């Protein structure tokens, strides 16, 4: 199993004819994702890589029963794209677009919630359930199927960490990019709950950063979790009051500090890595044996090596 997306996920790419959309449509297809359709207003009837393009998401639903979307629509029009996807009843909406006005983001989230859609992002690399479905812009090579769930606020850093896990033979159930904006559709707690309920996920990696209080809230939840959690938090050296690239990555008014987050996580029993590449070692340490294989730790990495207890 996996969370949010899997082999039953049928995807429409919104703005599939733009440079990014076209490139990543191809990449997702190559990964084996069921990309069924694309949209691009005024370009209905065209094809991209053999995938039909429609003017509206409504048509993509009608003709292909799509149930998820990946949005590459420019920031000024992204709100409309999310509304369109939610209105069409798509269950998962991945918003790659960055620099979306925060008021638009708040509107999107309110509407999506009203319609029962899950929004991943905005300003996210997306979500991947290795071997099943890739909805986003992450490099496929970093991932392999396995027992570890990853949830991250940042993109490249999480590729780094996933890649290290993969290299260590620790595959992933699902990797979720929450997105770097101040207002995003999912928070750590919502994803941790999903991982808790997913029988195949046996350990979770949380990749956080300074700013906001998402890691602190996650810590509260983790206290009641039975699955082990390993964390890495970026921003140890960030000075207060500076926005470190992400809208949300800023220590404001003494809140959202590195120290506060580490303290909360450790108090919840989370193993916190000092350096990104230590995450894999910590996961290997905490990963419980699978009930099925009577002692293996579920490693089934690219190297094809068996588990070691």
């Amino acid at each position, binding site marked *: 199993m996996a969370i949010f997306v899997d082999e039953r996920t049928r995807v429409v790419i919104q703005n599939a004819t733009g440079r990014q959309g076209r490139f990543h449509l191809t990449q997702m297809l190559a990964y084996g994702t069921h990309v069924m359709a694309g949209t691009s207003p005024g370009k209905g009837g065209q094809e991209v890589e053999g995938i039909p393009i429609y003017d509206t998401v409504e048509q993509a639903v009608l003709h292909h029963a799509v149930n998820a979307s990946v949005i590459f629509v420019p920031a000024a029009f992204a709100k409309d794209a999310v509304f369109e996807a939610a209105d069409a009843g798509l269950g998962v909406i991945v918003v790659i677009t960055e620099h979306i006005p925060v008021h638009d983001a708040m509107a999107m989230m309110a509407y999506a919630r009203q319609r029962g859609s899950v929004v991943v992002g905005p300003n996210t690399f997306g979500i991947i359930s290795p071997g099943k479905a890739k909805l986003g812009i992450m490099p496929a090579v970093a991932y392999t199927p396995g027992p570890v769930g990853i949830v991250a606020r940042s993109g490249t850093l999480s590729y780094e960490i996933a890649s290290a896990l993969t290299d260590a033979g620790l595959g992933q159930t699902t990797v979720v990019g929450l997105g770097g904006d*101040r207002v995003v559709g999912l928070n750590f707690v919502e994803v941790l709950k999903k991982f808790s309920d997913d029988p195949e996920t046996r350990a979770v990696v949380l990749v956080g950063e*300074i700013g906001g209080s998402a890691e602190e809230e996650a810590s509260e939840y983790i206290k009641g979790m039975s699955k082990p959690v390993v964390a890495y938090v970026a921003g140890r050296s960030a000075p207060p009051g500076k926005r470190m690239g992400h809208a949300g990555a800023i220590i404001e008014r003494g809140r959202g500090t590195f120290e506060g987050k580490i303290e909360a996580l450790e108090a919840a029993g989370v193993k916190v890595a000092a350096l990104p590449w230590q995450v894999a070692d910590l996961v290997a340490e905490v990963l419980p044996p699978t009930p099925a294989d009577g002692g293996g730790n579920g490693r089934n990495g690219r190297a094809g090596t068996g588990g070691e207890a």
Partner: protein
Amino acid sequence: MKLYEYLAKEAFARHGIPVPPGRVATSPKGAAEAAQELGDVALKVQILAGGRGKAGGIRFASTPDEAARQAAELLGTEIRGLRVSKVLVEKKLQIDREFYLGVAVDGGARRPVVIASTAGGVNIEDVPEKLIIKQAVDPAWGLMPFRARQIARRLDLGPDLSSQFTDILLRLYDVFQTYDAELAEINPLALQKDGLLVAADGRLNMDDDALFRHPDSPVVEEGTELELRARKAGLAYVELDGDIAVMANGAGITMATLDIIQLYGGRPANFLDAGGGAGVETTAAAIELLLSRRPKALLINIFGGITRCDDVARALVTVGERRGGFDLPVVIRLVGTNEKEGLAILEDYGLKAYRTMDEAAAQVVHAAKVSAGDQPPPRAPAGAGPAGDPSAVERGGGL
């Protein structure tokens, strides 16, 4: 984008929020004229920093001469590291009580939140939680009058004050929406001796990502010259006080790179997130920008996802060719999308790259110290993982 107090108050006034009579002065003469018109005045430096009162940035004057004198003392000086070029000259208020009122983006709730307190005039984060009322607002419907009345009721303001307060709150919410604000704040919302509420001080922080919808908005630029240049180029750049220039792709990895450099004993000169999928030209501009600060060493840390390694390599070569070679150690870590093509381009130019952050970080710290001529090769701190291979200096940054 943070607006100066006087711009925030102009916005408030346009939306019908009472503000003290006042004028902006850029000279002692201007301050004197304002005082002539207004009588007893306060002079407040217009800088984008809190705590200006404690730092001596607020003065009072009873006569035009005194106002001129005070303005002369303030203008041109630096307060909290920021040059003072404008003072707001305002009629001095007779204040009975001070409230706090703000509307902000609540990232956790994903909604606007109204924040109100009877304990105003101090930073809201210094007010005990039990004195603060927070009320999320449904973005579909906006702030309804009844909600404003509820908040007034919870503050226990009494009938007269409630109706003034409710009116001001609804207007402040309008400001918040109209200006695509991240924060619209009145602090203190002052109750004057005549029984009327007035916005004695105010902040209005607009969402940078929404500025395209506000072409007529005043432009307030905050940051160093280089930070402004970077922002214009679409780069996320923050200046720090070290000597190792850092470029990476992605906010998280850039932060992590700085963290590692620091853990390894180096001092980052900046945070530069070239973002995802920056093209050759943008990346080259980013590198030029970094070099313009004359760091002791440069670290490029790329894990290519949406970013293509060949683009990064081309950008480096472009900059190298423009400058006739690099005059500092350039340490590169390059993996991911189009990695092979990128490495080939680097190799053609005579540059090499590391595969891991660890190696690259250790190396750049070492190179910076060598470059500064003060230190033997580095070791990573104990427990921080395997140190970089010192022999990599020749492989990676050898120009």
